[in-house]
């Protein structure tokens, strides 16, 4: 039976699309059948990050409204054949997506894949609520920064009230993915630490993705970072997170930066 996972955050630009592509690819690399679905209607980007932008013919809205069959709209990845993309519409209005349409598409995807990963748009409005509506579990993406953490807290509230699972009295499983983590700045006390964010949001930690230029490099060439450079630090962090999603017990280390000479001399430390 498929797991439907929503990647969500409230705030934009924290790394949802990057994480959807990387986790989707990582799970597919492990032999799982994966569909990644772009819910960011009007601002689609997942196709670009996955390098499939020139192959999009039909999209989520076409399938949800019965204008195309799922088979016609699913784009198989050229590198891993168990990885598929369902793109968002670039031209349609976001209100063209109905709850009933989404329910049918997710239901159909459930039958064909092991993982259905929904890339949420930013915000807490209708688009974000549709993306999470039929999810079984959620990856909450946050950066170690006040506005991102606050928005994540709002999203956690929505996950616990506006999803079908929550409405039926079920438990919504939520995991924190801390992205764009800069160990040097956290070490100097310039950024919230992992412990701070965990204590404030109090959901379990799925992974810590370091801030890395490898992410930009991978998106430049249209390849999920786990495929583009599997041994890079962010790729390894995503691969570990994917293994945790599959129930493996993978130890986690908090990225640390050795203190530099300046910090040693002047004894700067995080309080």
């Amino acid at each position, binding site marked *: 039976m498929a797991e439907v996972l929503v990647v969500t955050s409230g705030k934009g630009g924290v790394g949802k699309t990057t994480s959807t592509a990387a986790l989707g690819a990582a799970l597919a690399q492990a032999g799982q059948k994966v569909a990644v679905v772009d819910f960011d209607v009007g601002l689609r980007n997942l196709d670009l990050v996955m390098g499939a932008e020139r192959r999009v013919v039909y999209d989520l809205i076409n399938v949800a409204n019965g204008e195309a069959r799922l088979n016609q709209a699913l784009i198989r990845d050229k590198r891993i054949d168990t990885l598929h993309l369902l793109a968002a519409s670039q031209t349609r209005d976001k209100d063209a997506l109905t709850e009933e349409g989404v329910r049918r598409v997710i239901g159909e995807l459930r039958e064909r894949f092991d993982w259905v990963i929904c890339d949420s748009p930013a915000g807490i409005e209708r688009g974000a609520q549709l993306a999470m509506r039929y999810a079984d579990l959620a990856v909450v993406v946050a950066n170690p920064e006040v506005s991102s953490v606050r928005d994540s807290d709002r999203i956690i*509230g929505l996950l616990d009230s506006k999803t079908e699972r929550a409405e039926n009295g079920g438990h919504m499983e939520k995991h924190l993915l801390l992205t764009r983590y800069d160990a040097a700045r*956290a070490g100097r006390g310039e950024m*919230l*630490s992992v412990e*701070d964010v965990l204590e404030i949001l109090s959901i379990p930690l799925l992974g810590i993705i370091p801030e890395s230029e490898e992410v930009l490099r991978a998106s430049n060439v249209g390849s999920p970072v786990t495929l583009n450079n599997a041994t890079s630090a962010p790729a390894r962090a995503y691969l570990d997170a994917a293994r945790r999603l599959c129930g493996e017990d993978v130890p986690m280390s908090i990225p640390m930066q050795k203190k530099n000479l300046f910090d040693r001399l002047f004894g700067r430390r*995080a309080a």
Partner: protein
Amino acid sequence: MNSLGMNILSLFTRKSTAPVARERLQILLSHERSTSCNVGLIALLQKEVLEALAKHIEIDPDKVQIKMERRKDVSLLEIDVEIPIPATDKPSSVASKISSRPRRTGQAA
């Protein structure tokens, strides 16, 4: 001290800001998480406070404001009641507008 000196000094003494961020978030979020459940409580308090006051004084229901503010360790419940002054007690409208200044002692220069 010139500004260059200030900048160099501030490099040495710069404090980490993360603990401030953490503290602010904790206070804010505990407030935001609780506002939804407090709405009912505040409405109830508003009604009962009004009823209690109405037995003894005449008040305008719109002039009773109840607010809840969550601090780190305690919550502050603020009840603000505006009581109209009976017409006979009011100072005359002109009297209240005559300027009053502190009395000056000593000699004029």
